[in-house]
C-alpha cells in the first residue's frame, strides 16, 4: 500500500491557485499552476516567483555544552566544509559524505550564534536527522512547526522589503531572524534558481497568511516544482538523487568548491569526515570524471538516462545524462552529465535519443549568468 502523502501548510492555497499536485519525496506538492512551467520559469527570471519548499527538512543543531564551536566541530565530522569559520549570521552550502566518499545529501547550514540551522532535502530528511543524531556533542531538533517559502527573482528584494524592510540589507548567503507583524521569520538570502532571492521560514500558523501577502503583489506568481527544476538546471545546480548520490563524490559532482583549503590535505583541519581519504585524494589529483554542461543541437530535450558517446556511431557510452530538459531562458535544451573532466568545453559529443545520435556540445556551467547580491 502506498504511504500516505504529507501536505504542507499551503496545500489549500495551492488548490485555490489552480495547482496540479503531484507526489514528490513523500509529499503532495504543486508541479505547476495555470501559468504553466514555461511561463512560471520566465516569470521568475523577469519578476518574482513564490515557491513552497516546506517539504524540505529544517533542523536545529545545538551544542550540549553551550559552546557553538563544539557544534561546528561536530558538524565538520560529517560535512567537509568550513563550519568553524562560518561567521554568525552567515550560511554555507555543504554535503554529507559516506565512508566511500559518496554524497548522502546536500544541505545549507547557517550559524545562528548559539546553534546552527540546517536545511536538507525532503527525501533525505529522516536519514539526515538520524545521521546527525550520531553526534554526541549536540542536540538535534527537527523543526516541525514551520513551513519554508522561497521568493526568487530580480524583484524579490524590493517586494519582500514591503513586508520586512530589513531583508533589503541582506547580502547573498546572509541568514537572520526578523519580525513580521509579531511573528519570528528566519530569512536567508539564497535560493535554487540562479536569481537573487530569499528563503523564508515561517510558523505554520501564519504560513498561508504570509504567502498570501506576497501573492497580493502583482509581480509575484506562485511557481511549481516543474519550473523549480528547469530554473536550477539552467543555473547549473545539482539535484540530489539525480546529479549526485551515494555513488558520486564531491569532485565528480563538481562540488569541490564547497570543500575549503582548511579541510583539504595540508589544511588546519584536514579530513575527519566520512570517506575523507577518497574525497581529498581525488580533489588533490583531480577527478577523472566530473559534472559537465551539455547543449544539445536542435530543440529536442535530452533527459536523464540518455547515453553520451564520443562519436556519431559505435563506441561505448562515456556517461549518462543526470539532468536534462528544455531551458526556457536559454531557449533550447540543456543537460548535465558526469563526463571526462579533461575534455575541453566546446567539444562535440553525441547523445543517443530514440535510436538516433544527436550532436551535443560540452558547455560551461551555469547556462545562465546568476544575479546574486554579493
Amino acid at each position, binding site marked *: 500500500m502506498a504511504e500516505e502523502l504529507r501536505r504542507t501548510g499551503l496545500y489549500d492555497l495551492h488548490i485555490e491557485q489552480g495547482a496540479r499536485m503531484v507526489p514528490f519525496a513523500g509529499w503532495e506538492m504543486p508541479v505547476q499552476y495555470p501559468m504553466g512551467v514555461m511561463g512560471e520559469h520566465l516569470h521568475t527570471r523577469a519578476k518574482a516567483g513564490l515557491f513552497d519548499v516546506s517539504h524540505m527538512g529544517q533542523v536545529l543543531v545545538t551544542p550540549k555544552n553551550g559552546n557553538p564551536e563544539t557544534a561546528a566541530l561536530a558538524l565538520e565530522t560529517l560535512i567537509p566544509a568550513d563550519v568553524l569559520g562560518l561567521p554568525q549570521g552567515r550560511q554555507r552550502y555543504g554535503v554529507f559524505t559516506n565512508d566511500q566518499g559518496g554524497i548522502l545529501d546536500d544541505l545549507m547550514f547557517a550559524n545562528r550564534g548559539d546553534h546552527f540551522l540546517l536545511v536538507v532535502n525532503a527525501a533525505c530528511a529522516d536519514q539526515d536527522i538520524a545521521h546527525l543524531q550520531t553526534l554526541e556533542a549536540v542536540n538535534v531538533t527537527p523543526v516541525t512547526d514551520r513551513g519554508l517559502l522561497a521568493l526568487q527573482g530580480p524583484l524579490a528584494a524590493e517586494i519582500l522589503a514591503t513586508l520586512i524592510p530589513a531583508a533589503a540589507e541582506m547580502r547573498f548567503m546572509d541568514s537572520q531572524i526578523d519580525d513580521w507583524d509579531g511573528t519570528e521569520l528566519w530569512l536567508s538570502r539564497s535560493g535554487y534558481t540562479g536569481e537573487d532571492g530569499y528563503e523564508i521560514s515561517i510558523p505554520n500558523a501564519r504560513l498561508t497568511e504570509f504567502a498570501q501577502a506576497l501573492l497580493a503583489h502583482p509581480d509575484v506568481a506562485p511557481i511549481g516544482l516543474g519550473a523549480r527544476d528547469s530554473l536550477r538546471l539552467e543555473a547549473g545546480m545539482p539535484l540530489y538523487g539525480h546529479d549526485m548520490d551515494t555513488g558520486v563524490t564531491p569532485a565528480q559532482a563538481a562540488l569541490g568548491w564547497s570543500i575549503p583549503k582548511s579541510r583539504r590535505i595540508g589544511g588546519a583541519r584536514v579530513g575527519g569526515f566520512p570517506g575523507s581519504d577518497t574525497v581529498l585524494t581525488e580533489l588533490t589529483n583531480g577527478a577523472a570524471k566530473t559534472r559537465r554542461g551539455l547543449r544539445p543541437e536542435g*530543440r529536442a530535450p535530452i533527459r536523464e538516462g540518455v547515453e553520451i558517446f564520443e562519436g556519431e556511431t559505435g563506441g561505448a557510452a562515456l556517461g549518462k545524462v543526470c539532468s536534462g530538459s528544455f531551458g526556457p531562458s536559454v531557449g533550447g535544451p540543456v543537460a548535465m552529465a558526469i563526463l571526462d573532466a579533461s575534455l575541453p568545453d566546446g567539444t562535440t559529443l553525441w547523445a543517443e535519443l530514440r535510436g538516433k545520435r544527436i550532436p551535443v556540445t560540452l558547455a560551461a556551467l551555469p547556462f545562465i549568468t546568476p544575479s546574486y547580491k554579493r
Partner: protein
Amino acid sequence: MLKYTEDHEWLRAEGDEIVVGITAHASEQLGDVVFIELPEEGREVEAGEEIVVIESVKAASDITAPVAGVITAVNSALADSPTDVNSDPLAAWFFKIKPADAAAIDSFMDEAAYNDLIG
C-alpha cells in the same frame, strides 16, 4: 464533425484522409510543448504505432497512429512553432493518414462520448 480516440487525439475526415491532432485536454496535460518529431510522409503505419514524439518542458510523450494506413502529409510548421499545440490544439494538426479501411473513422467516439471520458 470531429471524432476522438481514447489517447486524446481528434480525428477529422478530409476526403479519403483523416487529419489527426491532439485535444485541448491533452495539450493542457502535456504543458508547454517545446519539440515535436513527425513521421515521414509515405510511411505505412499500423494502428497504435507510436509515430509522433511530443516533448514538453516536463516530459516526452508519444502519439500513436489511430488507424492503419499511409501517412500522406505532416504539418512541418509545428517543428518551428511547437507551442501552437498549446495555443490552438484544434488547428495544430500533426499528420494526415489515408486509412487502409475507409470506414475506420466511424468507430471512434463523438464529442459527447469524449467529454464523458475526460469528465
